[in-house]
């Protein structure tokens, strides 16, 4: 087990006073894969990463990282991981180059200067290498953070909300880096509130809700679990009942009306329900169609369905 899972946790619990931040987190991340911890603010993602990177001690439960016990072999764990997060940061008063050399020296890398230059080059920071990190843009800073966590080619890389607050170009650049790392065999555990990010990067997604993993699966599996959403938009509100009847018959689920848009839709898990068939059936029933769609669910839909709450409403509470 331990050799095939880079991260394996069982029943991790953490309390902060009255707040029960983690209530038994079970997580298994296969070696060489990217696992996305997805959840709204306050779900426990960051606490989970802080525990798994030895920054916090669990109140209960256990975990093995790269085969080492999180608590008893904390030093060994630290030598196998890289961490980039909202908190584990670089020294803003040092230049990019000085930061990387310092971290290389602290991790006993042979030729710290060479390794620093290599990473500066890889992350497009060579030109800015001798400027203080405080003067870097958000995207550059995040790339320097990422470079700092890769100094010793970690077995497991933890990325806590790696693209929060970044512009789209910087975000795409971080995504590319994560894909490259995965291709090189690094296991990546990333947390995100962006459904799109988890969808694009992760081999497996663990939905975190109220300190527990509510569901795990590949993005495709999670979506299949929810099914697609078939929707018809009609030219005339009088056509809605007929459209609803067709959708009811084809999907077997209760249609939902959106009268303002003149639309009616229903969830389907039937793989034989294709878009042409949907159009034909609606047309045959005489529905005055304006638009038809059969769209795969977004992870937002997934979250809403599996945890019973929408991410938006919870973000307000958190």
């Amino acid at each position, binding site marked *: 087990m331990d050799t095939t899972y880079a991260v394996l946790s069982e029943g991790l619990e953490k309390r902060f006073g009255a707040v029960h931040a983690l209530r038994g987190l079970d997580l298994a991340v296969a070696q060489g894969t990217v696992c996305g911890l997805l959840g709204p603010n306050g779900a426990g993602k960051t606490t989970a990463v802080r525990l798994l990177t*030895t920054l916090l001690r669990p109140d209960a439960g256990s975990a093995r990282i790269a085969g080492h016990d999180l608590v008893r072999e904390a030093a060994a764990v630290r030598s196998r991981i890289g961490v980039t997060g909202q908190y584990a940061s670089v020294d803003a008063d040092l230049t990019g180059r000085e930061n990387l050399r310092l971290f290389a020296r602290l991790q006993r890398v042979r030729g710290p200067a060479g390794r620093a230059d290599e990473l500066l080059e890889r992350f497009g920071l060579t030109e800015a290498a001798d400027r203080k990190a405080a003067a870097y843009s958000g995207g550059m800073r995040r790339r320097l953070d990422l470079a700092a966590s890769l100094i010793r080619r970690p077995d497991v890389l933890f990325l806590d909300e790696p693209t929060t607050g970044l512009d789209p170009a910087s975000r795409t650049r971080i995504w590319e880096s994560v894909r490259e790392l995965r291709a090189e065999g690094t296991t990546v555990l990333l947390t995100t509130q962006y459904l799109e990010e988890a969808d694009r990067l992760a081999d497996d997604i663990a939905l975190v809700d109220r300190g527990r993993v509510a569901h795990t699966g590949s993005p495709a599996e999670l979506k299949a679990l929810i099914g697609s959403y078939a929707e018809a938009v009609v030219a005339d509100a009088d056509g809605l009942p007929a459209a609803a009847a067709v959708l009811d018959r084809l999907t077997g689920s209760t249609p939902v009306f959106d009268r303002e848009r003149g639309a009616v839709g229903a969830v389907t898990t039937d793989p034989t329900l294709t878009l042409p068939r949907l159009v034909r059936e609606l047309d045959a029933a005489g529905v005055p169609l304006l638009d038809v769609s059969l769209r795969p669910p977004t992870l937002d839909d997934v979250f809403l369905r599996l945890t019973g709450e929408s991410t938006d409403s919870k973000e307000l509470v958190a």
Partner: protein
Amino acid sequence: MNALAHDGLAMTGRQLRRVRNSPGLAILTQMMPINMLLFFGYVFGSALAMPGREYRSFLVPGLLVATAAGGLMTGMFQAAADTHRGVMDRFRTMPVSRAAVPLGQAAADLVVTTLGTVPLLLVGLAVGWRIEGSAMEAAAAVGLLLFFRFACTCAGIFLGLLTRSEDAAGQLGASSFVLPLLSNAYIPTGNLPGWLRTLAEWNPISAVTTALRDLFGNAPVPADSSWPVAHPVAGSLAWSLALTAVFLPLAVRRYAHGER
């Protein structure tokens, strides 16, 4: 031990580079006691019974020690900033010797302090302060001063790791300027009312200041004072040892445990 030395040196190098990259703060920190020497030395000095030059000779050791006590503020502010900005957490996730971070910070601080004291000594010499004792005694005085600085920095690092907030550290630091006011650093304590005199003389700053005045040969040990001032060298060593013995382990422990 080897790992501690290696990591400690890397950490010391980090702190020294920071000072080199942003020399402004270090320069401003050093300007403060020089300004005080000039203002106190000439403004207060004229109003005191002591002749001006004698007061300035009296004042230089006091300012040296008050500046050393500023290690409390510097140590606290830096440790709080590192914690607040997440640098501490990055170190904590790396296989770095646990004692290396606080010790490296304190060691770098000693280097900076040693260099930063030179301008104050030069201005002191210019306004009439002299080393009137032997070279051995002067070296002992410098040793006591640096040991006291180290002890204060350790206490500061612990408090910085505890508060974790730059703002809180700044507030506490700003109020720490009263510490030398409640000592014999700027004024003789002989004329203070009894209880206040006792309080001032048990302030560690008083013992170290008296030791420096004695070893530099600037002023004699005041008669019938409290024990740390009456035995200033032993008193200074005892204070610095006690502060280090309490706060260095606390700082290392606090660093190693983080907020868990």
